């Protein structure tokens, strides 16, 4: 049963790992950013004509002449005080920007993550159970096609079909044109989510469907299934009783691991649908060498992925009776 000590130990262990991860990630990204060949002043100016004096003011502002160690030291000191600093290009606190942008992305990512997980799993089960049938072939063709297509291309295709030719959905943006976001109705807001969510889900369900299909085929060819079959179990009941639990675990792991891919996919899809999210902001921060903002987003995404993995660990506990009865051995 649920052991408090074990649970505390589990979370304590996770917390220490989390802290080490955060520090490693931030120092690593700092060094990478410092190695970046992009000159932040030039990136900010975009070939604007300014005098030598103004350029020096900007170099000071972007801290180009400050040694790396000093920069890391100050940043870490601030971080321990809970201060992520001020974005150089947005000129606003990094925390505010991330919260604002992330809230738009989270909805998008959460819905597509759920949809791709559920639909992908179902498709995989159906395909695996009916191995070799037309439905299996259809799922396979779809998955291979979508796996080999870049998500921004899928996004543009969907945009062209549903928004441009059919005109069913708006062409992009997170709010209707000319309407204050505070006056937007739920339906108006939801219509704008459909196409980006659809794109992310369609792309995201392919790996989970293929994986589930293979796992199920493997399970179905195992000895215990042969035994069950010999007892007269067949069809859907066989899959339900002996297949699902066995394939759920790897499927859930895979789906939680895809948190990181979700982030990457969202960057491209947000770009295509002009959807204002954390992805677009990350691109802007990276290209303009906005160090505080970029590191803030890196930390945010590290937390995001870490939480994803943590949730996967917890779900094992709930799903797999073997783990529930043993200890957390992580």
């Amino acid at each position, binding site marked *: 049963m649920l052991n408090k000590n074990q649970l505390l130990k589990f979370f304590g262990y996770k917390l220490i790992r989390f802290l080490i991860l955060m520090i490693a990630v931030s120092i690593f990204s700092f060094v990478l950013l410092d190695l970046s060949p992009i000159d932040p002043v030039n990136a900010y100016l975009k*070939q604007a004509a300014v005098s030598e004096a103004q350029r020096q*003011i900007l170099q000071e502002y972007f801290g180009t002449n400050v040694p790396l160690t000093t920069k890391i030291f100050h940043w870490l000191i601030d971080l321990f005080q809970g201060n992520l600093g001020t974005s150089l290009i947005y000129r606003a606190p990094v925390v505010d920007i991330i919260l604002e942008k992330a809230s738009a992305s989270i909805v998008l990512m959460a819905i597509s993550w759920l949809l791709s997980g559920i639909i992908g799993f179902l498709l995989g089960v159906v395909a695996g159970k009916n191995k070799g049938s037309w439905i299996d072939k259809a799922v396979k063709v779809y998955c291979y096609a979508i796996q080999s297509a870049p998500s921004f291309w899928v996004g543009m295709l969907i945009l062209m079909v549903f928004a441009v030719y059919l005109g069913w959905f708006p062409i992009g*943006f997170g709010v209707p044109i000319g309407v204050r976001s505070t006056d937007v109705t739920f339906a108006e807001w939801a219509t704008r989510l*459909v196409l980006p969510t659809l794109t992310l889900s369609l792309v995201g369900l392919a790996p989970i469907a293929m994986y589930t299909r293979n796992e199920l085929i493997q399970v179905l060819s195992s000895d215990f299934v042969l035994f069950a079959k010999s007892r007269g179990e067949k069809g859907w009941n066989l899959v339900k009783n002996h297949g699902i639990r066995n394939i759920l675990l790897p499927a859930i792991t895979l789906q939680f691991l895809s948190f990181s891919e979700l982030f990457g996919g969202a960057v491209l899809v947000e770009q295509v649908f002009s959807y*204002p999210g954390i992805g*677009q902001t990350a691109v802007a921060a990276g290209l303009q060498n906005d160090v505080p903002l970029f590191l803030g987003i890196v930390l945010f995404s590290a937390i995001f992925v870490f939480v994803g993995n943590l949730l996967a660990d917890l779900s094992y506990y709930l799903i797999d009776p073997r783990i529930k009865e043993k200890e957390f051995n992580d």
Partner: protein
Amino acid sequence: MDKKIIIGAIVVVLVVIIGAFAFMGGSHDSDPTHLTVAAHSNIKEPEAGFNPLTGWGCGHQNYNPLVQSCLFKTDKNGSIVPDLATGYSVSGDGKTWTVNVRDDVKFSDNSTFDAEDVAFTFNTAKQTESELDLTNIANVTAVNNTCVKFNLVEARSTFIYDLRYLGIVPSDSYDNSTYGENPIGTGPYVLDHWDKGQQAIFKINDNYYGDKPYFTQITLLFPEEATWLELAKSGEIDVVPVATSALNQTVDGYQFIEKSAGRAQGVSLPYLNDTGIMYNGTMKVGNNVTADKSIREALNVGINRQTMCDEIFAGHASPEFTGVDTRTYANPDAKVADGDVSKAKQILKDGGWTDTDGDGIVEKNGLKASFDLYYPPDYLDRQSMSTVFAEQAKELGIEVKLVGADWDTIYKNLYSSAALMQQTSPDPYKSIYQQYHSKEMDGFYMNPNLYNNSASDRLMDEAMHTSDLNQADSLWSQSALVNGGGWGPAGDAPWVWIANYDYNYFIKDGIDIGKQPDGLGNDVLINICDWSRTNSTA
């Protein structure tokens, strides 16, 4: 049975989703006095907000800040005329500018505008770390409510452009951290709502002192260039810029409007000889091919600019010779007649360049007439221009090797290789002084080919320091061609300017944008107060 359930469920879900949303997409704003504008990528969404002190409306690109108004504005003929100002005078030494301002203007928050606000705006903008360069201001003081005095570090006739483009903010309520989101100004509009990353909605400013605009609401969108054409086709937007790839397209219900912009594109040619020195240990300096005047002259005379305008820009551009052809300070004498291949070949021959090994490329003392041309490949127009330029140069016997690269790489090679550059500013300090005045090597992209000519330098310095703006124009013009030298193609020919690429827009039928000044097409909303919609069905 199970299979049927699952398939059935999927079909139901799809039908519900599609059905539910099929009826919602088409609704859009039908108020004729509302205007929706997709901003050109030059007018980026201001990350730091609609704050002139961090570059909104001024700085790199100049455009109508909508929310704020400036001391001066540009009238429909292109002249700079008073807006918030009523007049100005410049002291004999050019170092003190006195500007008188209106006394009947209120900010959108009902506070009163006076000279103190002007002084505050300029003094604060000078200290703000942004693309807006006001380092030449020593200090600004309000003499009384309607008079401001600007003390400059050194005399500069082009200061009028700073006065023209910097929007005025209220000194009483200005707060650096919140102003960008809640801008208060004296312009024709107020910011009603801003959805970051998407759109800004402006409503009419009831306190505006000028003629009230016809459009009561403007929605400014900041889309990616790749989506412009789709946006126009969707019909939801009134003004959409046209990308280079869509120049041959038409969209039903839209007029194709072409505006000259003085957006000059051309090739900078390294001016110094390669003597083996390096700048900063990393940048090679000089190029023995382009340092030879006959090569630069031959290119300027031999290429066919009109052909390039037709091929690259589908005719939506005009030949450009000096980089400032469309400005009041242009010098027509500094141009050359182009497209003359035989004359170009003669120039090369006279300069000692002949094809000795029969490979079609000329040589001089064993040196092959060949150089690298760097260009940024993410701009379709500049990529095409580089390609066509290389083809045309080959006809003359000069080999141009194309190198597509990111800006940082381009900057590192500017002193030793040709580069495809662009300049748009109407301000001669930027378009002439910083472009051609000699400088110490600094690795910066201004005067990228290290051009220097002391006679031309002197004229530019005089033009900067005079207090008479007409005289300044004349001096700028002379610096293009002085004693057979100068930065024009008829002089030292340090550049091959090629084309002046117009700004093009799809504007919905029935919208009348009035008469706009020439050469400022990047700012299509410059005269927004004169716009109207004639057919209200749109």
